[in-house]
């Protein structure tokens, strides 16, 4: 089920929060109603952690993670690192990496099985990603943009990409990711998908400007309509190419 909300009157909630199948991170300093929305949806199932990264609130764009691990930029302070290690479940490996491109959330788009990265990422970083997150890494662009983490939002059941992505690109990405993909917008025609929404296998949150049409597209591609908050096990991946052509 997709929920609409705002962080301090701003619709770009994907900037201030991060959602995976094992945990949820939110920025500090916002109003309590922001957290209460998350807690009402997620409490009891996965922990909701309030944190900052490198002293900033843009936690969603600085870190990248899935149920296996969390990657943090080198600007993260030691206290924050410790706080996260304490708050998150033990099976989640929290790792701080030395990478020139520090906005890891903009550079890496991942689900539990596969990740797309910025083309200029270091070799070692790629290895660390494969190691910590337990995913297969592909260097890709989306609609000619190298910031793959910003322009696509992935879950294990589907993905939403930049609206100007061509059909050939969609086919290629879908084959790589092994999930159905659709090109669409969020927050009333905004092309920056990952900034406008966060998603995991059973729930999604969008900025309050998102129109009903966009919401219905999101719910259908991520298959949120009739799902329950239960742990999703690995399934047979079928090569499904589903796009509204």
């Amino acid at each position, binding site marked *: 089920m997709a929920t609409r909300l705002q962080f301090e009157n701003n619709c770009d909630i994907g900037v201030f929060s991060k959602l995976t199948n094992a945990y949820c991170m939110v920025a500090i300093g916002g109003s309590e109603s922001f957290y209460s929305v998350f807690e009402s949806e997620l409490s009891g199932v996965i922990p909701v952690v309030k944190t900052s990264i490198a002293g900033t609130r843009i936690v969603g764009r600085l870190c990248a993670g899935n149920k296996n691990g969390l990657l943090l930029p080198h600007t993260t302070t030691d206290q924050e690192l410790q706080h996260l290690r304490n708050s998150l479940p033990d099976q989640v490996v929290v790792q701080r990496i030395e990478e020139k491109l520090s906005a890891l959330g903009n550079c890496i788009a991942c689900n539990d099985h596969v990740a797309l990265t910025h083309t200029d990422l270091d070799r070692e970083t790629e290895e660390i990603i494969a190691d910590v997150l337990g995913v297969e890494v592909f260097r890709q662009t989306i609609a000619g943009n190298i910031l793959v983490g910003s322009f696509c939002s992935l879950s294990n059941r589907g993905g939403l990409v930049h609206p*100007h992505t061509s059909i050939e690109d969609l086919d290629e990405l879908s084959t790589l990711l092994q999930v159905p993909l659709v090109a669409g*917008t969020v927050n009333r*025609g905004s092309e920056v998908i990952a900034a406008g929404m966060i998603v995991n296998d059973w729930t999604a949150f969008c900025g309050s400007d998102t129109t009903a*049409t966009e919401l219905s*597209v999101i719910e259908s591609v991520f298959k949120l309509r009739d799902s329950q908050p239960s742990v999703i096990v690995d399934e047979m991946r079928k090569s499904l190419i589903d796009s509204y052509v």
Partner: protein
Amino acid sequence: MMAQDAGMFTVHQTIGSVLCCKCGIRMQPNAANMCVKCLRSEVDITEGLLKRLVLVHCPECESYLQPPRTWVKLQLESKELLTFCLKKLQKNMNINKVKLVNAEFIWTEPHSKRVKVKVSVQKEVYNGAILEQSYLIEYVQQDHMCESCSRVAANPDQWVAAVQLRQHVSHRRTFFYLEQLILRHGAAARAVRIKQMDHGIDFYFSNRSHGNKFVEFIGKVAPVKSRSDKQLVSHDSKSNNYNYKYTFSVEISPICHEDLICLPPKAAAILGNIGPIVICTKVTNSIALLDPLTLKFGFLDAEQYWRTSFKSLLTSRQLVEYIVLDIEAVSSEITVGGMKYVLADAQVARVSDFGKNDTQFSIRTHLGHLLKPGDLALGYDLYGANSNDMELDRYKGYIPEVVLIKKSYEEKRQKRRGKPRSWKLKSLNMEVDDKIKVNEDKNDAEYENFLKDLEENPELRFNISLYQNKDYQPSEVASVTEDDGQPIPSVPDDELLAADLLAAEFDDLDLIEDGDGEDDMAE
């Protein structure tokens, strides 16, 4: 393209379709990711643009006000009116950052006082998407008399500049000629009123520059002396505006074509000491003088003349008819100042003396190329004249007794008396002052003489437009030629303009030389 030239393989990209974020219909992705209809409903780019404007219009002269003070004459539904209307929108559009793409008129009733223009504009919205929209602008036409029309309506006789043209001679030949010249060049087109006065004509203009232009025109065609004055009419002390009436006083020199002059020593010195008795052969903006005894030629331009202003000794009124008894050429044909002359010795007698007594004169004349024994000629009788000229009294040298001027066609003309000519002239619309006494017969006789002059002198016709006389019956043409083979002077047909062709082909058809078979210059 470059990649393909380098041999690289590029995948053909097909653009997919997305759903419009508002209405959900399938569409090609664009910068706003909304279908055009949703975008239009969201954004109105005509917001803040002017939709209703005022045009100030003068009903008398059909012109529109261009602030602050200019009035422009424009036709309804014309390109110029469209440009005029759009100019008013320019500033408003620039502020709103819209670009004008297209504009056209929507027809409205002329008396509805509305002008409707449909305008298409483009504006950038939502970071990159350009939206085009068209809308209607209504211009309300407000009637307001322009300054010049209101001035004319308030006082129709109002003038700002007056040109007083005067020549102190006893005939009006110069003014007839000037009238034709003015008509030909349209110099008096802007005159509000033209009035005929004693010894001259007054022209009234509504603008000082028109009057000035007219004075300059006259200065080019006649030797004149002019001065200008102004008189304060009203004064606005707050805005320091002064309204004046300007008067130009223009005096034409009294020397005319065919006058006999006794030159004062100063003038003779300027001209190279030509004999004191000279004939004036041509008057334009300079005076051409010819010494008949030596065929020497001199020019005096307006300034030089007025510095040594002299009057003519005898004018063409005092021409006397002579009959040529014998003539003998002394020199060969000489071209002087564009005209051919032959110096000749002649024996002449006055027609009034001929047969009655034996008074004859032996004279030298410059008309040797024209005269044969038995011809009639017109000339000045210095022998019998009683002149009141100081220069003549002072002169101690030889003074000829008779100076012949031109050949006389009087006898031959008598046969044609009363028959209309094949050509006619237009005339200026002149008021005649009631106060001066007008001698009708004298005027008519002078005009007739003027017309005869025109017939005889092709160069006089040069600057004048002659029109075909539709009433003229050419059946009598056969009798025109004379027994002795010499035709009386008449104007050849190809010099005439058809009166109704005047306005349009004015410049093209005219400017013809004599009709020696040389056709019109441009058809």
